[in-house]
Each structure stands twice: as C-alpha cells, then as structure tokens.
C-alpha cells in the first residue's frame, strides 16, 4: 500500500499506515494519539533529561561491549556502537548517536553531532552485523551531522551517503528507532531499516525548524511556524509512512519515567526482531527496497501510469501476531 493511498485515506485504520499490524503495544494509527503541537514535540524531543542512547542501551540489553574506531582516522565519541545481548533474541549489533548529559560530555561528543569518522565507524559495524548474521539495531538522536570545516574536509557528505547506501543493501534485519531528535541526513545515515519506529514525542526532519524559519520566513523566531509546516512530529511521520509505528511515552514525556520508556522500547524491539527473523533475507531486502521506493508523493497525469498499491510480500500474512 503506497503513500498516496495512505494520504488519500484509503487505508484500514486498524492497520495504521499499513506497514505494521497493531502489536507490541505500538501506536500504528495516528488518530489514536493524544495530540500535542509539533512545537511541544520539538521541546520534548530535545528535553535534556530525556533518556539518551547510552542510558537506553544500559536498560535494553543484558550485556553491551562497545567497539571503537573507524580504522582510518579516529574514534568519534558522538557515535557509540558495539555488540549487545538482547533477552530472547541473542546477540545484536547496536549503533547510536550519543548526546552528552553534561556540558563536558556534550563537548566531548560534539553534542551528538557525528564527524565523518563516526559514520565510518557505523559502516564498519553494519558490515560486522552482516558478516556474523546479527540483527542491527540503531538508535537515532542527533541535531544533525557536525557542520564544521574539518568535517567537510574529511568528507561528511561522502560518509553519510555511504552509510545510507550500505544500509539499503545490508543482508541482515535492521530496526531503527528515533529516540529524540532525528536531524536530517545525519540521522538518516543511521535510520534506514526494515522497520523504523519512533518514540511518541520524537521528531524527524529534513531541516531544523530554526533553520527552515531562517531560510523560508527569514527569521529564526518563526521556528514554531516552521515546525508546524514541516510535519516533523512522530504522528505526522506515521501518517506519511516514514515511520512504521510509535512507541508510547509516559503522559509527561519520556523523561518523566525513563524506565517505563525503555521497557516500552524493549518490548517493541523484541517483537519486531522476532518478526523480521522469520523473513528470508532476500525477501527482507526486497521489502526494504519497496519500503523506501514508495515514499514520496508524485502526480502523473497520464492515465494508467499512477503507481498502484503493490501486493504485499507473501510473508506479510504469516507475520500477523498469533
């Protein structure tokens, strides 16, 4: 079922955006959401006390061993990755961005804005997951890739592009979860997956509301307007088919009860990895290709050329929760 149909409302609401059945307590129908304004989501997604990646990793996994380095230039602390043990699933590869909890940590981790070597470390770990047939779990939380001149000189654009390319063809299941802020290409470089989930108050945008306001409204103070226009809130992303399901947060937001949030993430993750684990890898790759192939809205006036909804891969039925 493609995005156009979804936008026209030709979808069974019980199937949310049609990517996932309702299971694992995921929100798959935006209509069921207690609405917040996009601007409120921006605030919550950036909330300093919101559980950050390392805290989430500690809560999600039995054991975690961090692996360092891109094998070419430097170990970037803004990207944290390694091997972890997940209850009932076994070993997985985890890759995430890490913001700091303190100013010192933020400086060390460049506020969760990775350098090219960070993305190259991520690529190395993606390939490790593929080589050893381990599922890949990514946690996304970044204002964006680091924009400094050194990052430009070392190929920020190439590193992001390569990371996305590798993920599109990686021969192992991938679950990507937007934890907080999904900042443009710097986030996408970790967010190509078979299933993409977002926390209920996460945001994911092509540009920060401030950036868009500065360019389109010529005033950074219009950030709230931009946030509304950009449809960057999780509920919008669900409607647009960019994320497949939302992980509920406590009423006051994730930071009011990190433990409950992490528990919700964990149960969602286990269910999704179990589902994907039952899909033959070749089908997984075609489905991943189709997932992105159908994102976007185009109008093609010539009769008969408007893309029709693709029939679901055969394994979709057998993935209904039993």
């Amino acid at each position, binding site marked *: 079922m493609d995005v156009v149909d979804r936008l026209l409302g030709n979808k069974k609401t019980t199937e949310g955006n049609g990517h996932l059945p309702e299971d694992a307590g995921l929100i798959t129908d935006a209509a069921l959401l207690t609405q917040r304004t996009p601007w409120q989501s921006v605030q919550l997604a950036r909330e300093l006390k919101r559980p950050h990646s390392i805290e989430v990793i500690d809560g999600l996994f039995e054991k975690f061993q961090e692996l360092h380095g891109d094998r070419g230039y430097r170990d970037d602390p803004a990207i944290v990755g390694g091997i972890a043990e997940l209850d009932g699933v076994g070993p997985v590869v985890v890759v995430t961005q890490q913001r700091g909890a303190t100013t010192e940590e933020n400086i060390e981790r460049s506020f969760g804005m990775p350098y090219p070597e960070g993305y190259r470390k991520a690529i190395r770990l993606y390939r490790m997951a593929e080589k050893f047939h381990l599922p890949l779990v990514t946690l996304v939380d970044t204002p964006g890739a680091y924009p400094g001149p050194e*990052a430009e000189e070392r190929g920020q654009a*190439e590193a992001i592009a390569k990371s996305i390319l590798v993920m599109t063809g990686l021969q192992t299941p991938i679950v990507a979860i937007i934890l907080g802020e999904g900042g443009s290409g710097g986030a996408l470089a970790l967010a190509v997956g078979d299933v993409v989930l977002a926390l209920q108050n996460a945001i994911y945008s092509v540009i920060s509301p401030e950036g868009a306001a500065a360019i389109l409204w010529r005033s950074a103070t219009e950030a709230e307007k931009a946030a509304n226009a950009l449809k960057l809130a999780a509920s919008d*992303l669900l409607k647009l088919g960019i994320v497949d399901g939302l992980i509920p947060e406590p009423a006051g937001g994730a930071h009011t009860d990190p433990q409950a949030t992490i528990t919700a993430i964990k149960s969602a993750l286990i269910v999704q990895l179990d589902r994907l684990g039952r899909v033959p890898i070749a089908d997984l790759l075609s489905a991943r290709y189709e997932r*992105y192939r159908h994102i*976007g*809205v185009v109008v093609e006036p010539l009769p008969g050329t408007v893309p029709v909804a693709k029939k679901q891969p055969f394994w979709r039925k057998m993935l209904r929760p039993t």
Partner: protein
Amino acid sequence: MPFGRQRKEFPSQLWTQCPTCGEMLFNKQLARNHNVCTKCDHHFRLGARERIELLVDKASFTEHDTDLVSGDPLGFADQKPYPQRVLQSQAKSGEKDAAICGTAHIDENQIELAVMDFDFMGGSMGSVVGEKLTRAAERALANRTSLLIVSASGGARMQEGTLSLMQMAKILGALHRLDEADLPYFSLITDPTTGGVLASFASLGDIIFAEPNALIGFSGARVTSETIGEKLPKGFQRAEFVLEHGFVDQVVSRAQLRERIAFFLNAFRPGARDPRWSL
C-alpha cells in the same frame, strides 16, 4: 578600467561580465562556448537542456517521465503556498521539476542520463526528483547500461519535509542495486551542489567528475564558518579543494567533459570486459 561606466555601454540582455576576469562577453558567443568565459575559462552555470546537448550524441536523447509533477503532501505554506511556488518555477524555467531524465548515447554508448536543473527551485530534491532519478537508475539496471547523474542542487526540498529526506534512501537503494550488478554509475558535480544531494548520490559515483571552481559542500559555508566562528580556508568547498581532499576523481573543464566521460564509458563497457575473467 571602470566597469561601472562600461556596463552602460553594454545592454545587459546582450552582454555578460565575467566575474573572474572582468571581460564583457557577448551572450550569444558565451552560449556558443557553453557558458565558459572565452578569455579566462571561468565556468558560468549551464542550464539542464544545454547540458544535455553538450554531453550526448546529436539527437540521441529520449526524455522519460516528462509529466511527473509534485503533489503537496504536507499542505506546506511559508510566505507562499508550495503549489504556487512550483507553478511559478514551472513558468519561469519551462520545466516540470528540478530533474530531466532520459536515455541517450555518448560516443555510441547507451546510457541513462539524469540532469538536475538549478533554475527550478534551486535544484531542490523533492519526491519528483527522487522518483525520476530512481526510475533512471532502475532503467539502467533493466537495460544493463551505465547511469550518469549531473548534480546541481541546494539539497533536499524543505517544502516536502521529511519526505524529501527519504528520497536520499530511495535513490541510494536503486544505486546499490546498480552497484551489485557491476554497472557503472558516473557522478558529475556542477556548481552548486550541497546538502542532501551531495550527501547521497552525488558523492558515490564509480567515477566522480566536478567542474572547475564548482561549489561542493555538505553544510552551507555560512553555517560552517559560524560553527567555528572564523573565516574558512581559501578555496574551501570548491572543486579543486574537494579534489585535494580525495572526494573527486577529476576536475574537468566543460570543453573536455564529453570526451572524458566517453573514455570511461568505453573502458567500463561490458564489451570491453574479457568474459574469460568473469566467474
């Protein structure tokens, strides 16, 4: 000499002044020279249609997906509604969106060609550009031919929000299949290419060409210099700078582009491969 006075003597619709050497250039002559200054080789920007004419064998270009136009998935409006911006750009540029795609021949090699048009909303990439480039890659895969993408873009199109961002993954998914099939993908980066376009297909060609002095960067130079609060190194984000840093194979001036691309098309042509070497 005082160009201020000079310019008066040159009606601007007929003459253009070269920003590098100051020469006043007769527009028709400039166009005949593919927008390259006849005196100092300064490369002005070149329109998408002129670019195609420059690159392909005479009359060999067959355009595809000509009627594909943008929707308004977000109901986006800033100072103007998005659909209105699109209509204005269509009127101004005479194109439906920021990419022109088709099948062509270069030195008798059939290729799929996609050329971005900076004149259309700054060459920004939304769903239409994503769809057209993806189809071009899929056609190359189906026809077992090479793909050439000519980039000129400010990046992803804000007015389609995160859907524009997703076009990066959509196109790269298709390029990954091309790569798996050992089919050549050539990237030609022209002035300017930045943001999400550089951070996806533009940076991943088997061979990457750039035009002289083209602006090539991920973040806008403004953002970048603000990040460190200092001036940027000379030539920063220019083609020659990017070449030195290892991200471009060759900086090629416009006059040689076609022949240069043909060289690699011929070298990588399946015919040129010795079947005895294949597994």
